[in-house]
Each structure stands twice: as C-alpha cells, then as structure tokens.
C-alpha cells in the first residue's frame, strides 16, 4: 500500500528512507532525538518535500511531483494538537467533513462513535482554545480519524501526557486501526510506547539512516548499534 524511497537533506546529514507497508500494518520509527524521524513523517505527510525519490500510496503518487496536501489521504498527528482555536470542539472534529456530506448518516454515526469512544461529550461545545492538553489530543485524534485516512502518521502525539491517558489513546488507536483498517507509522522516543502501538515491526534511524528493521524481538536480542542497545536497555 505505501511504497516509499526518498532522501531529504538536512543541515548536518541526509535522511535516507525506504519502506513498504501493507494495508492495516504498522511500523514504529525509533531512534534518538534529532535522527530524522520527524523529517520522514513530514515528507510522507507532504509538509516537507523530499529532495529525490518517490512516495506512492495505494496507487496514488504523493511524490514526485508533490501532491497538494488537500489531495493526500493521510492523517498526521503531531506533538502539538494544532486545534483551530477559533472553533469549538464539535467544529474541529467536523472540520474535515465536506459540506455536502455533513448530514450523511454514515458520517453522523461515525462522528457520534468517535465522540463517545474518545469521551468528548463534556467538552463537545466548548471552544477548542479552552480545553486541557489531554482533551486537545483526543480532539485532534477524532478530527484526524473522521476522514478515515488509509495512512496515519503519528509524530510523538503523546508527549507530555500522563501514562494513563497515553495508554487509553494507544488502545483507541489500535482499536480503530483494526476496525477502520488504516496503516500506521509512529514516531516516539519511548520504545515502550512504540512497542504497544506498533507491535509488529520497527525501524531504527541513526543520523538519517535506517540501521535496523524488523520485529521488536530481533531488535532487542541483536541491536545493530551500541546506541540502539543503550536506548533499548531502558526497557
């Protein structure tokens, strides 16, 4: 489904990345801070452009040429929830629903499901600028999932949240990745978060290069680099 191979120059190194990911599969991108993990996601999302290579998603060419953001069937969740502060929670969640689909029973029912599962009812009509950080992450997650994107990119979306909330959000994501059937690429500097979110496989980046990929068990038993060994030792 996702077939990507690209390079992107950064100030101190070049990020080189390649990945083939099937439908409803997930992969965790793991590595120390500043190794180019976020750059990889930004290139796939389209908020940054690779210097060369190609990115294809389910028969759709994302790059090159760079497909406009509004045509990319990609959900992108970052550390900052980036809610629209001038809108209410309800308006944020419904933001991506085309006007002509607003009363479509399928959308209405899907939004009601998201609202219930993510416990958004108490803040549903509140201004997005007035809700707590944890609630904002839930709203951002709901807003992204409304369109049921086939590929979801998660760039440390749980940073700064308490463990209980992170656990709940991960459970929600796993639940929906199975029920909706989207693929996931997740970035986090905490291996335990990634192992829960993407238990199937992982990729390790160091200085922009993929130094190891495969099952988590393989990474743990035979880490490719000393840095990876020390990062995994925290587990």
């Amino acid at each position: 489904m996702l077939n990507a191979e690209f390079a992107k120059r950064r100030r101190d190194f070049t990020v080189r990345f390649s990945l083939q990911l099937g439908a409803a599969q997930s992969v965790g991108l793991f590595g120390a801070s500043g190794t180019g993990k976020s750059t990889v996601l930004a290139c796939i999302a389209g908020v940054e452009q690779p210097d060369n290579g190609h990115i294809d998603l389910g028969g759709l060419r994302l790059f090159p040429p760079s497909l406009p953001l509004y045509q990319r069937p990609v959900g992108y969740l970052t550390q900052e929830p980036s809610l629209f502060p001038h809108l209410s929670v309800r308006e944020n969640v419904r933001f991506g629903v085309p006007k002509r689909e607003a009363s479509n029973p399928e959308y209405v029912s899907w939004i009601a499901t998201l609202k219930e599962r993510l416990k958004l009812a108490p803040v549903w009509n509140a201004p997005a600028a007035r809700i707590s950080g944890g609630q904002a992450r839930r709203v951002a997650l709901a807003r992204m999932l409304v369109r049921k994107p086939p590929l979801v990119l998660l760039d440390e979306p749980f940073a700064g949240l308490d463990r209980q909330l992170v656990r709940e959000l991960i459970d929600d994501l796993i639940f929906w990745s199975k029920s909706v059937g989207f693929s996931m690429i997740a970035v986090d500097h905490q291996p335990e978060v990634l192992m829960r979110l993407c238990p199937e496989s992982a990729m390790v980046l160091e200085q922009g290069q993929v130094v190891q990929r495969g099952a988590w068990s393989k990474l743990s038993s035979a880490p490719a680099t000393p840095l990876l060994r020390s990062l995994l030792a925290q587990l």
Partner: protein
Amino acid sequence: MAIRRWIARLGAAAFALALLYPLSALFAHVGAWQWGTQVRGPALSSVRVSLLLTTVAMLIVVSFGTPMAAYIAQCKAKERLLWQAALLIPILVPPLALGILFTLAFGPYGGVGRLLNHWGVAMTNSATAFVATQVYVGMGYYVLGAVAALDAVPPMLQKQAALLGLTPIRVFFRVTLPLARLGLAVSLSIAWVRAIGEFGAVVVTAYYPSGMPVQLWVDLQSFGLPAVMPLLVIFLAVALPLPWLAHVLAQRRSNA
C-alpha cells in the same frame, strides 16, 4: 515594592496626560463657536465626502491589499524584503511630495494620466482623485500590518487544514482569515486614520471635493478658529472611534 509601583504608575499617568494634553484645546477659549450656514454647509459636505470616499478607498485597499499581503506572507525572506521595500516607499515619501508626484504621474504629463484623460477620467480635483490618493496613502500601512497579522497564524494550522481536505483558498477563508482578523482590523484602522486625516497629498490632488482636513484648513484661513472647532470635534468623533475600538479589542485578545 508597592511605593515603587505607585511611582511608576504616576510616571505612566504623567506620560499619558502629556500625550493627551493637546485634546484639552477643545475647551480653549477661542470665542463663540461658529456654526452658521456659511460654515455649516461646506463642513457637513466635507464630512460626507470624507466618510463616503474614505470608505470606498478602504474597500479598494482591503480588496487588493489582502491578496497582496497573503502572497507576501508566503514569500521567502529575500523576495518578501523586496515587496516590503516597495510598500514602504509611499509611506516614507512626505505627503506633499506624494501629492505632487501623484498629480504629475496621473495628470496630463504622465503616461497613465494621458490615457485616463482620454477615457474621461479626471485625476485632479475629482472624487476619483480623492479616492486614488487615499488608496496610495493607506495601502502600505494596511498591507504591511496585514502581513504581520497573517504571519502570526501558525503555519501548522494551515497545513493541518489542508491535510483535512481543504483547498488553499478554503484554508485562507476558514483558518487564516478568522485567526488574523483582529490584526487585519487593526491594520485597516491605521490605514483609515491615515487616509481620512490626509491633508498634504489630498490638498494637491483633490482640493475639490473637499474632505474634512482640507475644509478645516479652508475654514481656518477664511473664518479663524471659532469656525474650525465644530468641524474639528466632528472630525475626531468620526475618525477615531473605529480604529480605537479595533486596537482595544486586539489588545484584549492578546492579553486574554
């Protein structure tokens, strides 16, 4: 600590009083204010001219200035500098000099002026000249302020909106514009004040129809201070509340 704070507060109050002191002249003894037919007719006409034509000028400023500001806000640093330098020129040129240049460029001596004359558009002493001068005077203030207002909208919000399926134009209207609206209002209010109060350029390009600043000057020359005071009060009353309110609202929003 409290004493220091009070001393600072007193200093600030003295500063504000000094700044507002010229307004006390509204209560100066200049003799009985004149509001006879000789003064009233032209004065009320100048109020109408100023309000109507400045509104038209501001509509033009917003219609053309906002897309320009949106374009500049997306430019890289070097190109942005170029546009901003161009916008600064009408701001920096002294008003009287701008009026003379404007008359020459759009009068019978200029290429565009000849063309406009040929089409029957008078670019001196006409409503068109009045509006065009105000557009030139206010445009730079509006666009530079609007660029700053648009810059303040986090780019990630615009990218998220696009990733949710919105085309660039819809992102602008649903995210960028609502988030920048107070900054845009403040920029427009500055352009409004600058345009409605413009004298130096307008007195050269559009002595007729006379707006309030020109009429104030005419009244001052012809009848003296007692004839100026009523129009001065009207001038302040119609020119100041709108921008003042926009600034206060913007400050409230940024302090919230």
